[in-house]
């Protein structure tokens, strides 16, 4: 079981060291070439390294992120195809000046422009200082000089476009063979992101990340009834990930299920035992654990927009978040996880942190600044969605650790209940307590057997009560990581990829259906 949690082998690293940047390393030459692609005159030192040296004289701290992203997205709907290529690059400069933050970013390169952006960041920091209660301070972080990349088996950009389009069109054809299928759609997305991080403490890190994902869905309709079945997933892997999804085979299964749902009985309302399949449990963890453990949110940074958290500082170390069966980790080192990375956007290495240990709340996701508030060092959770945005505390891979059960045993052990899976709708309050989630499909369980398909399943609860009712988690054979490509937070909203490792689990006495009044 633990083998899957060992440090990633997909990240290839040269020897790590501290100190100033040298042009002697092969990997650093790659960095230089990347930066030179971004310039329109002058040299790398002039643009960024010398700039940092100058900034160092005037500010407490500064960092620069330079990013370039290549993307390819193929979207398909009922055989219609939209082929979108993207090339995006820019840089962001973050400055801590007299205890206040400023950040400026631009997609325009050039010596003069870069200096102007740095000046803007410093001026903004000075303006922030006019309305400050306490000075921001950073917890210690060892300067790192490193280079890492995603090792892919099959480079997604080398797979012929015809093959990708052909796969999606064939999926569409299979689903639309059934008359009741009104909409068949799918997508395949590939991104390669090159990111260079430099700071005034001497860190110089280059990371190249390949993200691949996509999926298919179909929608059926009969009268006023609409049903959807879908399968989407994403990973920090190459095109081998798409191959592993068996989309052609899944097309037929999803279409049949979406048709069957049209005539299935409505999910009943009441209190019952609830089994959640992996993809829905991923969302449950995301909304009711992943967001409330973001320490910036806990400290009020999102109060004006996305909200705060019920997991206040007084609860750390003692609050019973869940039952003894619930152990949750944040782990940026899982191979292939969509929330996996070598370094965050403060140059802190990705790591594994225990969040909930046998039901007791033990840890937050932290940044260098917020970690100070609880007397800790950052656990490497600061990321920005692009060069243009300031980094925020974001989920990595937030995982429910596996238990002992097989899914078959769990169903057999359930006298009366409902098994739900595949997210359809999601809503939770601004402290992350009251939630209501809807799923695409459900199965009624009677005397240890799945007896009938149910449509429009919904369940609701209060986060800690829900997790305390968990009495069984399936084992490592059932455990897998789901990729969520679009976790939103911050202003302007930053959409970022995260992962959730889960195995199906059971929750006792959960309210299902919508309360009638």
């Amino acid at each position, binding site marked *: 079981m633990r083998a899957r949690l060992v440090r990633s082998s997909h990240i290839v690293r040269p020897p790590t060291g501290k100190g100033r940047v040298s042009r002697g390393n092969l990997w650093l030459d790659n960095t230089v070439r990347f930066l030179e692609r971004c310039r*329109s005159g002058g040299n790398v030192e002039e643009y960024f390294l010398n700039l940092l040296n100058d900034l160092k004289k005037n500010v407490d701290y500064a960092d620069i992120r330079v990013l370039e992203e290549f993307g390819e997205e*193929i*979207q*398909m*709907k009922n055989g*219609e*195809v*939209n*082929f*979108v*290529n993207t*090339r*995006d*690059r*820019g840089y962001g400069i973050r400055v801590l000046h007299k205890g206040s*933050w*400023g*950040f400026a*970013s*631009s997609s325009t390169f050039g010596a003069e422009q870069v200096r102007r952006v740095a000046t803007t960041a410093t*001026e903004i*920091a000075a*303006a*922030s200082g*006019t*309305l*400050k*209660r306490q000075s921001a301070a950073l917890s210690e972080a060892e300067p790192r000089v490193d280079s890492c990349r995603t090792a892919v088996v099959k480079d997604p950009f080398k797979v012929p*476009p*015809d093959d990708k389009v052909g796969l999606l069109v064939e999926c569409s054809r299979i689903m639309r063979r059934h008359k009741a299928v*009104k*909409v068949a759609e799918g997508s395949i997305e590939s991104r390669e992101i090159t990111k260079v991080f430099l700071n005034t403490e001497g860190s110089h890190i280059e990371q190249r990340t390949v993200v691949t994902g996509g999926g298919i869905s179909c*929608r059926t*309709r009969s009268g006023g009834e*609409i049903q959807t079945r879908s399968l989407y997933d994403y990973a920090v892997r190459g095109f081998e990930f798409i191959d592993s999804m068996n989309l052609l085979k899944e097309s037929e299964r999803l279409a049949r299920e979406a048709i069957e749902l049209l005539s299935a009985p409505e999910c009943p309302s009441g209190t019952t035992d609830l089994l959640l399949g992996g993809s829905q449990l991923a969302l449950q963890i995301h909304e009711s654990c992943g967001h409330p453990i973001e320490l910036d949110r806990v*400290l*009020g*940074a*999102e*109060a*004006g*927009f996305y*909200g705060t958290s019920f997991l206040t500082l007084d609860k750390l170390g003692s609050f019973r978040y869940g039952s003894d069966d619930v152990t949750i980790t944040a782990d940026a080192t899982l191979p292939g996880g969509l929330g996996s990375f070598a370094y965050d956007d403060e140059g802190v290495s990705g790591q594994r942190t225990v969040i909930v240990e046998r039901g007791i709340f033990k840890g937050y996701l932290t940044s260098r600044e917020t970690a100070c508030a609880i007397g800790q060092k950052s656990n490497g959770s600061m990321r920005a969605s692009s060069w243009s945005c*300031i980094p925020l505390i974001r989920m990595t891979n937030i995982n429910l650790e596996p238990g002992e059960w097989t899914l078959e045993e769990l169903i057999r052990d359930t006298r009366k209940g409902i098994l739900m899976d595949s997210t359809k*709708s*999601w*809503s939770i*309050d*601004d*402290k992350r*307590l*009251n939630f*209501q989630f*809807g799923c695409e499909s459900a199965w009624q369980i009677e005397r240890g057997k799945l007896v009938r398909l149910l449509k429009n399943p919904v369940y*609701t609860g*209060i986060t800690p009560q829900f997790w305390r009712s968990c009495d069984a988690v399936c084992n490592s054979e059932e455990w897998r990581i789901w990729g969520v490509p679009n976790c939103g937070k911050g*202003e*302007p909203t930053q959409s970022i990829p995260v992962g959730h490792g889960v195995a199906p689990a059971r929750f006792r006495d959960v309210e299902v259906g*919508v309360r009638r*009044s």
Partner: protein
Amino acid sequence: MSEERIREAAKVVLSTSGADQLEVTLLQENQRLTRFANNEIHQNVAHEDVQVRVRAIRGKKIGTAKVNSLNQQRLKWATRKAIDTAPYGVENDYFTSLPSPQRWQPIQAHFPSTEEVSARRRADVVREVVDKARRSRLSAAGALSVRTRRFGVFNSLGVDAYHPSTWVRLTSVVSSQDSSGYSEVGSPDFECVHPARVADESISKCVKGRHPVEVEPGRYDVFLEEYALSEIFNWLAWIGMGARSFQEESSFMYGRIGENIMAEKVTVWDDGADPDTFSLPFDFEGVPRRKVTIVERGVARGVVYDTLTAARGGSISTGHALPPEYSLFGPLPLHLHMAAGPSSKASIISSIEKGVMVTRFHYINGLLKPREALFTGMTRDGTFLIENGKLTTPLKNLRFTESMLRAFTNVAEISKERRVLGGDDFSTFVLPAVWIKDFNFTGRTEF
């Protein structure tokens, strides 16, 4: 970045050979955002970017590429990529041509003084909100956003559309130990943003909201303030007011055109040319945005179209195309208006015997049953019990699960006051407050 620079870039794209038709949209954006929380500025940023989208047409196939630079080499890369990938697409039977030039009415939406607002000035505005909250021993959070946008659409058939605009938005959530209050203002002109009013409204809500109590979920009359209605309209637009969802038969409008779907008091339209909003006189295909009536006196009238969905539906584009990467999602109304009623908000509240006033909703989801527009969501930042025409008791937050078709059929009154809300993306709504009878609250939370 000047208009001239944008036009030069468009020329580079349109002079490339290899496609039957070419289209380029250029969106230059400059956003400065000052976020505050715990009575201090904690995130303060500026960013500038330009997004160039190229669509290449080869026969009935379309290729798209996006780049964020006006550098010639990059523009050529995007154009070539769009041209080269077009053949990988599938022939689109409904595609006939990119749009031809059409006349559109320019709107004065760019305020140079707004574009020049400094970080210090933004901090001063935020300080006004924070100082007022501090004096009331409360904690202020929120954001002041100042945006400048230069938007151009050009194609090889002669479409030549350029529109500069500015938008300022100030939001405030003021909190105590057990309550919070929200307010918001938006305008193209920085001088029209009055922080004291924003502060006063959110502080007043927060103070009135102290010591909230629980009520049993159930059916209540509700008075939804403009902010709450805005969250609902976002989802209504998303799931049912565009031609794609209509043609795919998932829209709550599908099969109901000409029928009563809401109360007679309800009229809803989209108008991208309203100068009080973050206006957009043409869409991402360069087609002028028409004023489209979606619901007229409760009767479903129609949805909005782009070129492709118009061809499919035997209609004409209403000028609501989104960027080409969203073409399979289809067109959307981004400037929804709801007609005002005759009564003031105060007089409507005074008519409600028993009900719940909702300032704002949080995390609405409209995917439960799109044909019924069945939504769920939580109240937030100011929920109050109305008894005998008065706000009597602050309430802990409630969850609703309700069909919006049913809710808007039960509209009893609409306020004469309307607010301009949103503007963080392309969308701004102009909405009143409404009294809705018999609204279904299905759950509650602990605060």
